[in-house]
């Protein structure tokens, strides 16, 4: 039997300290936590940075390092620093060294990097070793070369290699959410279908329980399946909360693809062992012919500056669409005459349909509206320049020529807010490997106090 303790769904999300203490008392074989995903958008992979504050990350990571020292078992994090790019891994490694120094702790640290060499990918694309997944965008050598970061998602094999070093702590770049949970039980011969299924249920911590904020759960894997126990005092896992978690962020609720195969839960049975613990058996792991890892990439897509104006005048609220259309037309014409370079101007009407755009058929404007100007351009300077041309319209543009100049509300001075470079995801593909370690780099470091 292998016991995996999952403190929470992601480092930085927080957890119930009493629940974590209960988990340590249960004598886990490993402590595993996820460090990110694509869910916060392309900025993080594009820049290779973390979305959480350094101080919060350090505070929570220090607590987990303390818990690890108490338990005397390995601690592993996957997708370090939100995106799992090499620079984000380096960021967490540096935090880890600081904490170890402050604690006076000696540690063996294994670091698994998932960042990809772009020219190697261009070669793989030419050799037919990169395949698109459903709804993938078109790619080419030039799309790959435009990426600021490409990562491959490590599976259980690469994590096992990192654990085999005997490390106290493993910091991994991009991995699948499940790989950090599945690696040890698979290496110890637990039921493969049960392992991958339990790993999927556990990857969000207590989300698959009645008390998601409690964070910590314990999953026990064995030869026939897995048992999930929440560590929060009031948290309960039920056959419904556990089975329903396969729906979460999954386009298919029965099948989950991983490097080397896929999980099929159609035959799974969910049994309540008591009012808070669930036993699952019957899931299948199906080995694939090829060993593939998923790729994620982000590239720069220009520079953006946004402005915000507030419109409270009832007549302008009533005619807001015409007002905005007229501003975009006049401002674009003026900017075209005065600047060189590509730019786009968009106005989104907050309070009408800024969330859903043209899909919204129920849009009703209230007593006031926010008008968000978004200028996207090929350089930062140009996006600011055009935004500065847009501001006078947002402040004073009249609905008709025969009226006194109106003035609207700017909440800030200056009203324009540069957002810097913007990024977009441009890969939804898999890369075929001859050896699981081929696209990954593993190193070991002895940290001395």
């Amino acid at each position, binding site marked *: 039997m292998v016991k995996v303790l999952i403190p929470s769904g992601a480092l930085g999300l927080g957890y119930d300290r009493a629940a974590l203490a209960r988990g340590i008392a249960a004598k886990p074989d490993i402590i595993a936590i996820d460090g990110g995903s*694509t*869910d*916060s*958008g*392309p*900025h993080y992979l594009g820049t290779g940075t973390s979305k959480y504050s350094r101080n919060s990350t350090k505070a929570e990571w220090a607590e987990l390092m303390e818990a690890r020292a108490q338990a005397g078992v390995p601690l592993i994090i996957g997708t370090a620093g939100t995106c799992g790019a090499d620079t984000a891994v380096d960021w967490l490694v540096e935090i880890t060294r600081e904490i170890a120094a402050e604690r006076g702790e000696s540690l063996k640290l294994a670091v698994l990097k998932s960042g990809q060499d772009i020219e190697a990918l261009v070669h793989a694309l030419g050799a037919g070793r990169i395949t698109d*997944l*459903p*709804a*993938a*965008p078109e790619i080419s050598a030039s799309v790959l070369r435009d990426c600021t970061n490409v990562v491959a998602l490590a599976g259980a094999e690469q994590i096992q290699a990192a654990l085999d070093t005997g490390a106290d702590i493993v910091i991994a770049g991009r991995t699948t959410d499940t790989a950090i949970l599945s690696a040890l039980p698979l290496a110890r011969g637990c039921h493969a279908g049960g392992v991958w299924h339990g790993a999927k249920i556990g990857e969000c911590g207590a989300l698959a329980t009645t008390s998601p904020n409690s964070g910590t759960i314990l999953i026990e894997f064995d030869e026939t399946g897995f048992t999930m126990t929440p560590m929060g005092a009031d948290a309960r896992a039920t056959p*419904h909360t556990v*089975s*329903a978690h396969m*729906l*979460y*962020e*999954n*386009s*298919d*609720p*029965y099948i989950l693809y991983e490097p080397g195969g896929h999980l099929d839960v159609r035959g799974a049975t969910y049994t309540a062992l008591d009012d808070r613990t669930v036993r699952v058996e019957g899931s299948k792991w199906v080995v694939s012919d090829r060993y593939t890892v998923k790729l*994620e990439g982000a590239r720069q*897509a*220009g520079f*953006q500056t946004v402005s915000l104006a507030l419109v409270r005048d009832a007549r302008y609220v009533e005619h807001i669409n015409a007002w905005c259309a007229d501003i975009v037309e006049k401002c674009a014409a003026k900017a075209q005459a005065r600047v060189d370079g590509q730019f*786009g101007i968009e106005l*989104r009407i907050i309070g009408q349909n*800024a*969330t*859903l*755009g*043209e*899909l*919204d058929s*129920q849009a009703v404007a209230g007593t006031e509206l926010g008008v968000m100007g978004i200028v*996207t351009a090929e350089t930062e300077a140009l996006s600011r320049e055009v935004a500065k041309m847009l501001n006078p319209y947002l402040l004073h543009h009249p609905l008709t020529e025969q009226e006194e100049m109106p003035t609207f509300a700017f909440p800030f001075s200056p009203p324009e807010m540069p957002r810097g470079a*913007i*990024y*977009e*995801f441009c890969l*939804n593909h898999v890369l075929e490997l001859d050896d699981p370690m081929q696209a990954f780099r593993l190193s070991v470091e002895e940290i001395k106090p």
Partner: protein
Amino acid sequence: MTRLVDVAVKIRSKNAGPFWLTVDIFCGSAEVFDRVSAALKSDEVAKLFQMQTENLKRFDIADLYVVKFSLPRPQIQGVRADRDMHGASFANLLAELVV
């Protein structure tokens, strides 16, 4: 006029990776599930997203009283034209659908 939000327990939408969106309708009971499953037409759901019905994946999961739809994201997550980074607001389109 009964809307989906009036009968379902919970309707949520989320990204399933940057390129897919998934919507889960939790009906809460066999009775509501049977009603929603029969009344919800895939064509109408596709129309809400201004997409082709054949690109819409549908799962009627009787054990969980859930109807689930998955579709290529209306805009890839985070591109310039995307308005909702986590895709959570698309659930409202389904919630307001008359069943």
